[in-house]
């Protein structure tokens, strides 16, 4: 009979106490594993690798607010930018960089995004963009997979997997939008789902993408000529009387008829003049990181928009807030494990006075002091490792149960069986803890006087 088998038998003899002690370790480890899994999910969600964008151009103000809104669809954009930021400022800024003749020398693509509205059903964020959005990598090396078509026509939409699942929408489903402004009215226009995106594990899963032209065609989304001209001037753009006349003429030519209840795909969309359009954000992918830094510098000089590298913003968020929160959670859960370890110590140490005779019998049968010390240490190891393995399973089990809830509430996809390397580190830590808490009771066993204990 080996020493671990003897240790196991001794634990079995005190089944209730042993189980409760192991359970306390298991609960501690369960919490540690849950924190690690959630942390890993947060890491993946906010990790720089998951943002396939070099620069994010948005309104001046909070760079973090812009990133959260544009990339993670958390919150609304503070304000919109004139379309000229996309068509003039961006290429001009690129050209101001030494050696750059054409913007395409350093820019792979620039994708406009308009945001603010939500779906009437489910309140999912609506994002107006171009089909180019779906050609980019949503994460490093990962491209969008879809069923159906991209939203090529004005009132086409493609929806994220969570939207499809929760709203029960499929291709040809129709839906309305709630205006993102103060009044929050329901728009008359109806969009038709033409494509479904495969799950990505990103905020795209809970986003409804509509054709950006269709977004502007919604009544109230394009700027009235007076507002548009005044906004252009606010942003420092020159608007000549000739341009002003063109804007007024173009706006007057755009017929605001009722879009509801008829098939918009059946006729060509009305062209919206650029100066009547606004953009919430522009996603830019540069050809190199150096180009990204230089372009951001040029864009941020003298413009009312701001360009940030989302990677840097997210890294800062992770470091300052998420990282510290993670450390705090891990510290608290580690404390729970330490308390459980003290529980093991108390349980074994208290049992030692009752087991002096048992130890003396083993010694009388020829067990050395080291042997009885090892048996007690073995008990501590079995409790810690048994509790640890149970805790590992319970931790992942907890995440299995919580995953659908997290997904529905936070839109974050959680793989309960994703294994964090830190989980492997738990076991050497548990072995260390077992040795530590088993040492003193083991020493008591080691020092047991055989003759005295047998005579007691």
């Amino acid at each position, binding site marked *: *009979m*080996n020493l671990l088998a*003897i240790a196991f*038998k*001794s634990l*079995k*003899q005190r089944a209730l106490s042993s189980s409760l002690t192991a359970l306390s370790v298991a609960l501690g480890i369960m919490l540690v594993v849950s924190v690690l899994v959630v942390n890993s999910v947060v890491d993946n969600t906010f990790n720089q690798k998951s943002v396939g964008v070099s620069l994010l151009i948005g309104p001046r103000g909070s760079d973090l607010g812009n990133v959260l809104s544009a990339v993670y669809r958390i919150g609304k954009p503070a304000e919109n930018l004139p379309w000229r930021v996309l068509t003039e400022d961006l290429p001009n800024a690129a050209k101001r960089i030494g050696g750059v003749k054409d913007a395409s020398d350093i820019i792979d693509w620039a994708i406009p995004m308009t945001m603010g509205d939500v779906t009437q059903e489910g309140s999912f964020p609506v994002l107006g963009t171009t089909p180019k959005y779906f050609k980019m990598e949503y994460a490093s090396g990962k491209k969008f997979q879809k069923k159906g078509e991209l939203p090529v026509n004005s009132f086409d939409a493609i929806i994220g997997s969570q939207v499809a699942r929760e709203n029960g929408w499929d291709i040809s489903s129709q839906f309305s939008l709630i205006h993102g402004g103060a009044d929050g009215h329901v728009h008359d226009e109806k969009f038709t789902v033409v494509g479904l995106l495969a799950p990505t594990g990103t905020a795209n899963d809970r986003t409804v993408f509509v054709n950006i032209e269709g977004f502007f065609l919604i009544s109230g989304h394009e700027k009235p000529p007076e507002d548009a001209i005044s906004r252009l001037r606010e942003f420092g753009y020159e608007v000549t009387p000739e341009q002003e006349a063109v804007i007024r003429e173009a706006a007057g030519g755009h017929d605001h008829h009722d879009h509801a209840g008829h098939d918009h795909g059946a006729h060509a969309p009305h062209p919206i003049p650029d100066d009547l359009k606004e953009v919430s954000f522009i996603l830019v992918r540069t050809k190199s990181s150096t180009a990204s830094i230089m372009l951001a510098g040029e864009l941020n000089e003298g413009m009312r928009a701001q360009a940030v590298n989302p990677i840097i913003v997210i890294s800062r968020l992770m470091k300052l807030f998420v990282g510290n929160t993670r450390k705090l959670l891990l510290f608290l859960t580690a404390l729970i494990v330490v308390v459980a370890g003290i529980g093991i110590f108390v349980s074994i140490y208290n049992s030692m006075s009752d087991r002096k*005779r*048992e130890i003396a*019998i*083993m*010694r*009388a*049968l*020829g*067990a*050395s*002091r*080291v*042997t009885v010390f090892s048996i007690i240490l073995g008990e501590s190891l079995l409790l810690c490792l048994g509790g640890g393995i149970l805790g590992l399973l319970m931790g992942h089990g907890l995440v299995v149960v919580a995953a659908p809830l997290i997904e529905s509430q936070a839109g974050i996809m959680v793989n309960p069986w994703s294994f964090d390397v830190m989980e492997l580190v738990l076991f050497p830590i548990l072995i260390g803890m077992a040795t530590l808490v088993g040492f003193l009771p083991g020493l008591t066993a080691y020092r047991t006087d*055989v*003759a005295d204990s*047998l*005579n007691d």
Partner: protein
Amino acid sequence: MSLSIRNLKKSYVEPGGRRLPILNVDSFDIADAEQVVLIGSSGGGKTTLLNVIAGVTTADSGQVVIDGTDVTKLPEAGRDRFRALRIGYVFQTFNLLPAFTALENVLLGMSFGGRKADRPHARELLKRVGLEHRLDHRPAKLSVGEQQRVAVARALANRPSLLLADEPTANVDTANQENVLKLIREACTENGVSLMMVTHSQDVASQFDRIETLSDFNKPEAAE
């Protein structure tokens, strides 16, 4: 196996610091396969003598030579190993481990000598003491007589050359006394094991050819 004790002295220090001599044996021998019963008054040092022979307690001075090995000269780990391999010990209170079944208690007797546990031998021993149907029962489920039989089987598990028995029949009823005694003696005879048994019972003692009274050969000095 032969046991030879020379000039053995053992004393305890009382809490007040007073030295209390317990053993002072000039010479005591047991021949190979001999069965000796040791009688004497309570507190006379019988159990201490067994403990010193088994190496559970150290002597102050003198020799305890078992099959040519002076147990008193061995380091503690050496005494443990020697005990595990060469000495069987039956206690008055059986001292079975409650967490283990009858079979496991016997296997435990084999576990500490570094030899591989011989499960068939353990089964055979329990069969020999009439417990083949109680192999998987824990001590709490066994009668007093059965527990002592398991203790005898455990003491013989390592095929010892010396069996020390400290009042093995004291806690069993009359019917079982006979059985246990018969069992121990037969097992020792069959396996050529030397036996040194402590008893208070004249009935038990009278069954042995050699009866030793401790006070006849143990002359402890006066307490200091």
